[in-house]
């Protein structure tokens, strides 16, 4: 495998609805932004192929929508393939684009993602997403994702004493960050009280603990070292990749031992049954592999910034632990101590995360990659129009994409020169 670089990116603002733009035009906007950011040095003719990510044909009301993106952005007759893996669709797409360059097949690959969730009412949208759980055993009893995540965090609260206030603190952090991100769907300067007083959707998760449905698109351009040198003045190298999976039904997960990260000991978890329904084994597996490849010994010391998949405030807290930012059970204290805030030891979701940016599924993981790229370039002020969210001297960042009840997870590590 040869080195691969992220050389440009673009985002079409995430919004409740883009009334006048379909999925093709949304992708085209992000695609053009990415090309323009290279000052016209790279043209579509230089792209060898694309990987297109979108989650749900139900939302799009169009099968084989990827073919329509490919022709709309002018990449026919080059090869393209669709990637789908629930909420992790974008992260999987990014890793697939990496493989297509690392293997030597492409010099430049375009990773393009979108989702158009505004075509149906929210309850119908929740139903479409619920169809990504077992339709014989889980969906028919009224199972849906807000309910599944509620049950997972209720167990986390039982095991570790995690509180509703700790979840709310994460929602406050991410929403206030997003106020400075022009690409975010929601710009709400929420207080702890606002979150705590928002209505229950699935106890103990409230309105502001849960991400919203969105229309949006994002594009990343990945390149070999030779192509990166030719087209980009400040590329960022992709240094670590990991991915993992878990059973579709969270009821089927084992209660066994914790797979350890380099800085953890077996004695840390002698009484913990893992993952049960309180933790994401796929996230832990992805972290182990990505840290090994990138040479990360202790993520809290070795990483400068993280964009992770906070579809729920609870899943951000649980993911702190899967990524080893703190021990299992200490996620609540990690946010209480402010470690993941913009000025904390390791800022998490400076973009505002899914909670505030929105979650147009196929675009989400690529949006994370684009904002991380800008963080590591130090170009957030240029792209956001303000420097509030630029993490100072950020050199090494982690992006994390997550599907289902933790069914697929990807972790990717990016490094500035």
């Amino acid at each position, binding site marked *: 495998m040869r080195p691969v670089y992220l050389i440009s990116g673009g985002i079409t603002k995430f919004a409740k609805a883009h009334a006048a733009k379909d999925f093709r035009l949304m992708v085209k906007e992000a695609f053009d932004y990415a090309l323009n950011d290279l000052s016209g040095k790279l043209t579509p003719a230089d792209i060898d192929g694309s990987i297109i990510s979108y989650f749900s044909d139900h939302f799009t009301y169009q099968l084989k929508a990827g073919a329509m993106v490919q022709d709309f952005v002018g990449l026919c007759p080059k090869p393209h393939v669709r990637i789908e893996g629930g909420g992790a669709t974008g992260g999987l797409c990014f890793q697939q684009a990496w493989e297509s360059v690392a293997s030597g097949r492409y010099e430049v690959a375009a990773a393009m993602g979108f989702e158009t969730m505004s075509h149906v009412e929210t309850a119908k949208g929740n139903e479409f997403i619920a169809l990504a759980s077992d339709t014989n055993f889980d969906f028919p*009893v*009224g199972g849906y994702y807000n309910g599944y995540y509620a049950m997972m965090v209720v*167990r986390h609260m039982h095991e570790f004493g995690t509180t509703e206030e700790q979840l709310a603190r994460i929602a406050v952090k991410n929403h206030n960050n997003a106020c400075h991100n022009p690409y975010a769907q929601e710009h709400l300067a929420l207080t702890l009280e606002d979150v705590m007083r928002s209505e229950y*959707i*699935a106890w103990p998760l409230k309105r502001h603990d849960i991400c919203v449905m969105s229309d949006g698109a994002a594009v990343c351009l990945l390149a070999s070292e030779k192509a990166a040198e030719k087209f980009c003045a400040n590329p960022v190298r992709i240094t670590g990749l990991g991915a993992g999976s878990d059973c579709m039904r969270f009821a*089927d997960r084992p209660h066994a031992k914790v797979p350890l990260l380099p800085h953890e000991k077996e004695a840390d978890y002698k009484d913990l049954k893992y993952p049960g329904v309180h933790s994401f084994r796929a996230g832990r597996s992805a972290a182990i592999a990505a840290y090994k490849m990138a040479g990360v010994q202790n993520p809290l010391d070795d990483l400068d910034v993280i964009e992770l998949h906070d579809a729920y405030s609870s899943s951000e807290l649980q993911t702190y632990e899967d990524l080893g930012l703190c021990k299992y059970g200490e996620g609540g204290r990690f946010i209480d101590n402010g470690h993941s805030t913009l000025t904390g030891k390791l800022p998490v979701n400076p973009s505002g995360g899914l909670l505030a940016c929105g979650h147009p599924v196929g675009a989400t993981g690529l949006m994370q990659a684009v904002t991380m790229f800008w963080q590591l370039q130090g170009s957030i002020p240029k792209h956001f129009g303000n420097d509030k969210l630029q993490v100072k001297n950020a050199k090494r960042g982690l992006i994390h994409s997550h599907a289902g009840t933790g069914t697929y997870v990807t972790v990717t590590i990016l490094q500035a020169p």
Partner: protein
Amino acid sequence: MPTEPRLPEIERGTEVFAVDPLTVRAHFEVDYVHSYKQDTPFFHGLAKRQLLGSHCAKCHYKFATPRVRCMYCGGETEWFELPAEGRVHSWTVCYFAAQEFLKDVPFTLVLVEFEGVDTLFLSRLVGVERADVRIGMKIKPKFRRKATWSVRDVYFVRT
């Protein structure tokens, strides 16, 4: 004089949400011929007021939600009746739902654990207020008198 061919006029118009950008109602509906295939004995069991799990004949792993092959050793599993009583492993009350279940809110979902069984079972918990649900609480399955031939034929109540 021969007339030019023409399509018949439509009798019903189209629902228009917005004129510009033009936004219309598009309807999509489908009935599936959906079979439970190898999991059929589980659903037959519900109709006979039996809640069936599966256990691996080779490595003895016990699944509360059945599967006909073992996830760990790949062996064939055998059906067995789950204990008559379980406990709340986790739970939630849903105040919002997928469209099909909006009519049911608020409702309580429960993950049930059974003594000596390695995995859990997702179901509804009925008749317990939110303030009264506790992890570890003893609960038992109840079965609908008239089967719907779905996993909805079983739900749980306090013992």
